[in-house]
């Protein structure tokens, strides 16, 4: 107990950003160093050797760096979307997938796999396009169901989201039941998530959404704090709650939809990282939103690294690692710092 009011000054803000930023940077630096195949970094960085004769350089620049970049933006997107969803739903159990984005996206991917759409315009894979469209459509559907008398009510959103989750979950199972062995296997692999990538196409599928959403969410970060006091307190403090909700849900839906469509439904990052950041830096959304973005980016790179080396040369799906690595750590944090977790 002490008598000083904790405020957010630029000094405190940038100190925390330095901490989370350093974590992300360190992870991003270690990420490319290891892989299923050892490479010679001196040779990889020797630009005098033509690329066709330099497999080390191809592995580093063609697969490892793009993969780390993809893990960075995916982790950042999911964690920030999770933080925004927890603020908007005022529920510590909310995650980017609470309102059905992941199940809608999975249904989209399943549909593309079942129908057999391989590639679409601009070389976008059919699963990616279909998953993206369906995940955004799902959010729209959940809103439409929850929208009553000009307001999105939290309880209705949660119920609509959970119901839609079940609906699409069943539809995915139905498609899987009707699929042949090969399609079924492809779908299961998709559902486990994969950061396997060649080149930066997937990265560019997420990065623009991340930039736009970050700008929107940071702008509203201070108002998000007032949401914790409830709708009425926020409205009577002059917060345009309807606009805040719309902007927040669109931004987090875009983040989750982009991430899910590119890499599959990688869970746990979006639930856990915001809580971890909250436990360290406090619940102020001006810290939680950007902090989650940075910490989530680093965390997913780290998980991806583990997934590549733990059973090398085989790779584990990253979704398995985020939970296996993240859950015990998270539970330990929870036990050790239960006070700050009381919500």
């Amino acid at each position: 107990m002490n008598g000083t009011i904790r405020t957010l000054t630029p000094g405190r803000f940038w100190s925390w950003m330095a901490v989370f930023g350093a974590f992300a940077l360190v992870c991003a630096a270690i990420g490319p160093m290891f892989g299923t195949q050892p490479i010679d970094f001196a040779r990889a960085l020797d630009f005098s050797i033509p690329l066709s004769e330099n497999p080390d350089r191809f592995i580093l620049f063609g697969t490892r760096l793009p993969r780390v970049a993809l893990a960075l933006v995916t982790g950042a997107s999911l964690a920030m979307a999770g933080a925004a969803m927890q603020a908007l739903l005022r529920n510590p159990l909310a995650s980017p997938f609470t309102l059905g984005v992941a199940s809608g996206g999975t249904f989209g991917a399943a549909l593309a796999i079942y129908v057999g759409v391989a590639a679409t315009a601009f070389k976008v894979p059919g699963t990616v396009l279909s998953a993206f469209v369906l995940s955004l459509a799902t959010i729209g559907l959940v809103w439409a169901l929850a929208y009553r008398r000009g307001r999105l009510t939290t309880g209705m959103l949660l119920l609509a989201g959970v119901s839609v989750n079940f609906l699409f979950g069943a539809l995915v199972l139905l498609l899987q039941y009707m699929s042949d062995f090969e399609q079924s296997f492809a779908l299961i692999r998709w559902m486990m998530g994969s950061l396997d990538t060649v080149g930066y196409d997937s990265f560019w599928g997420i990065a623009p959404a991340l930039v736009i959403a970050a700008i929107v969410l940071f702008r509203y970060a201070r108002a998000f704090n007032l949401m914790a006091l409830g709708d009425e307190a926020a409205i009577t403090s002059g917060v345009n709650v309807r606009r805040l909700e719309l902007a927040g849900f669109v931004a987090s839906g875009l983040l989750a939809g982009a991430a899910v469509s590119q890499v599959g439904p990688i869970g746990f990052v979006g639930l856990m990282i915001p809580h971890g950041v909250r436990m360290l830096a406090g619940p102020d959304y001006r810290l939680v939103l950007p902090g989650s973005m940075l910490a989530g980016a680093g965390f997913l790179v780290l998980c991806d690294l583990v997934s590549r080396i733990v059973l090398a040369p085989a790779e584990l799906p990253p979704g398995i690692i985020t939970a296996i690595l993240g859950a015990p750590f998270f539970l330990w944090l929870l036990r050790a710092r239960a006070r700050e977790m009381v919500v």
Partner: protein
Amino acid sequence: MSDALYIASNLSFAYRADRPVLIDVDFSLGAGELVALIGPNGAGKSTLLKLLVGLHKPGSGEIEFGGKPLGDIRPRELARRVAYLPQEDEIHFPFTVGEVVMLGRWPHSGGAFFDSASDREASARAMEVVGIAEWAGRLVTELSGGERARVMLARAIATEPKCLLLDEPVSELDLKWRTDAYILLRRLADSGIGIVVAAHDIGAISRWSDRMALLSRGRIVADGAPDEVLAEPTLKEAYGVEVKVIADGRDRAVFATIRSPGTRRAHCKARGDCSKGSRVTDEEGRDA
């Protein structure tokens, strides 16, 4: 009244068309005035406050704040002048007490990302006057209901408003804190702030109020000095229970006088036929 803050006339409101909550209500609040809004549960006290702060639009009638129609005032501008404390306080996520009080400064932030020095000073002053300065670092999720109520009051005061609309701010406070809160509200009113307090302990608040407004079934049935409003027949009519008012100087005690409910319960218990009705009257007897 030249320095009127609120003038509301002919207000009617219904959540559902077939159940009017407020009927033809006239209400005013002047600067420096402390008005107690009293009346039975469901009489429309909270709804009236919500109309005044703009959470609901009146079905008919007009509300003016500071000489302007309420609808013409931008929400954030209104929030700088009017601080409203809902009946149910809600707080999610473990903010510190200081951070919650600082949230009262949001209407003044003008979109700034960081907290300013004046935000911190105003919040510190508000915590000082409410007497919770040393709680700044405590987690609000660990406070008791009464402690949280004081934090929320400090948040409202940190806004430095011209007007406070408080929906049962003291219902969870003990005798001393309740009295402290009333004394504080009186002091704030004396400094020029207009205050409306919805309250159930009508005897205690009458001492500190300039005026009392009694709502019953959606209508204001009495509005005036405490002595006028706290007339036994008026209260009996509004609350539907025999009422006794005992005055001792400026202090008043108001209680319901059901003919010795304790004896009645003892009797029915002895006979073993305690009906639902007898239990209800008993609770009403204690509640008032």
